[in-house]
């Protein structure tokens, strides 16, 4: 099956606690999104971490945004860009 899998880039800001990045990655995988690109920047002084992740899925990205923003350490989740790429998804 060929479906129009959207790629979305999401900016996430969070408190930098043990397991923060693992939590985010787990939610992305478990909720059905494929990680395409990721950049992480953490600053030691203010214990903040900023991530930019590009994900692909045929599910609406807002569902992922909701799940990520529910995480306790996360302070903001913004969808910064979207592009449509044909992605092969086997059912």
């Amino acid at each position, binding site marked *: 099956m060929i479906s129009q899998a959207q790629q979305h880039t999401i900016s996430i800001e969070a408190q930098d606690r*043990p*397991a923060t990045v693992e*939590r985010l990655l787990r939610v992305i995988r478990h909720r059905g999104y494929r990680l395409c690109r990721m950049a992480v920047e953490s600053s030691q002084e203010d214990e903040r971490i900023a991530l930019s992740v590009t994900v692909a899925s045929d599910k609406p990205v807002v*569902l992922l945004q*909701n799940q990520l923003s*529910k*995480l*306790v350490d996360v302070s903001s989740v913004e969808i910064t860009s979207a592009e449509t790429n044909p992605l092969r998804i086997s059912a």
Partner: protein
Amino acid sequence: MTGADLVVQTLANLGVKTIFGYPGGAIMPVYDAIHRGDVDHILCRNEQGAALAAVGFARACNDVGVCLATSGPGATNLITGLADAMLDSVPVVAITGQVASPLIGTDAFQEVDVLGLSLSVTKHSFLVEDASELQATLEEAFVLAKSGRPGPVLVDIPKDIQVASLLGGPASAEAEPAELIEEVALEQAVELIRNATQPILYVGGGVGMAGPAAVAELRNFADQAGIPSIVTLKGIGTLEDSRDLHLGMVGMHGTKAANLMVQESDLLIVAGARFDDRVTGKLDTFAPNASVVHFDIDHCEIGKLRHAHVGLLGDLTDGLKRLGEKLAEQSGADLTAWQQRAVTEKTNHQWRYDKPGESIYAPKLLKQLSDQLPEDSVVACDVGQHQMWVAQHMSFTQPYNHLSSGGLGTMGFGLPAAIGAQYSRPNACVVNVTGDGSFMMNVQELGTIRRYGLPVKILLLDNERLGMVRQWQQLFFEGRFSETILSDNPEFVTLASAFGIAGRTITRDDEIEQGLSDLVNSTGSYLLHVRIDAEENVWPLVPPGAANQQMMETAE
């Protein structure tokens, strides 16, 4: 004081009176502090039992349950209980000991990465890295467990922090108040409700979790709006079965009336429910013509599986009240025909208990038990056919009285959950309804009943089968009964007696009355072992992949 003393003192300051746990190396300082502290510790006989007791405690009183375990195997044994709390949104705080900070990451004795392990089964989890953060972390764990959509929170405490020398202070952990539902959203909901001619109120476990005031408000709303209602497994007790327009449980083993009517509805007013697959059957055939107005505290649930025309995010009690007030301002569509339909369907599809023969028909026995139990009793069941029969044939007047593992379907839930409930509701009659498979999953908790002399009642429905799996094998696997025959069960009454628990076996219909009376009236714990027909099935059944109106009612 030590970090361990601070743990116990903080728990006491937060109002915790009872915790469930099991000691071991990496948590020994905390156990030492318990020995001299002000919190009652209940020793369960497996950490899974402790976690599920905390769940039962929490669910029966709608407050936080607490469990405690050591590192490594202690923590891994907790996991099933935390997953249960996660899937049923139960406020639980779990505290685990961890190897000392310098040893973390060295594969030390009984070291498991519990923080990593916790990620998918908790709402949040902490590894305390600095002794100065210990108290604040514990307080935050309680706030998180009970705020918004409740859930389990784990605090992993390395041993060096437990023995560190610390100063404690007064502790507090108030749940964050829910935000109020937006006015515009309520206006939109009112519009849809006024125009609906076949509305259904679809009620889940979230209403009970929002508290007794939300339950009362929902009942007012149902009365005032005259809208026929259905409940999920976890919504049972939120609306009383005695209401004319209440159709009972919806879904895989729901009532015929509920499943037929929901499919025909033109508007679903969803309160604290989440379109679980056990409720909807094949999702895209569920209530196909209905618009959706969805109340929830968790924004992730709105639109997750079914598009909501109006999402009502926030405080349910206040929202229902305001919705009711707005509806009262102007009358809506005439619901008389739809209400009449509800009454007719409910009457036409009442349960029947007139099964011929001498053997014991479990649904009838449960109906009789339900009629005999005092009003504020708690029933904690296990998982399987007996669980569905409890849901179908027993009546509950509060959601806090029916403890059933809904989301995770955890066999072995019932006995420890009943123990937990007996602590949060010490004056209530607490009954564990179990099956011969489930009972053996946490049978060690009979030791907890014996140790504390708890009056927990056990009703064991013995079909010598893993009945629910056997039913599916009969219906969907051409009768290949792979590993579901338990004809080699132990002598259950003898087993109970080894723990000082009285009991008897009944096998015939004419023994039910005396058996139930012995169970309900015993002053201490009691096991009523009931032999039932191995071939009995739970009906109706919405088969996998079918729509809710396509219920099977026999095996033919």
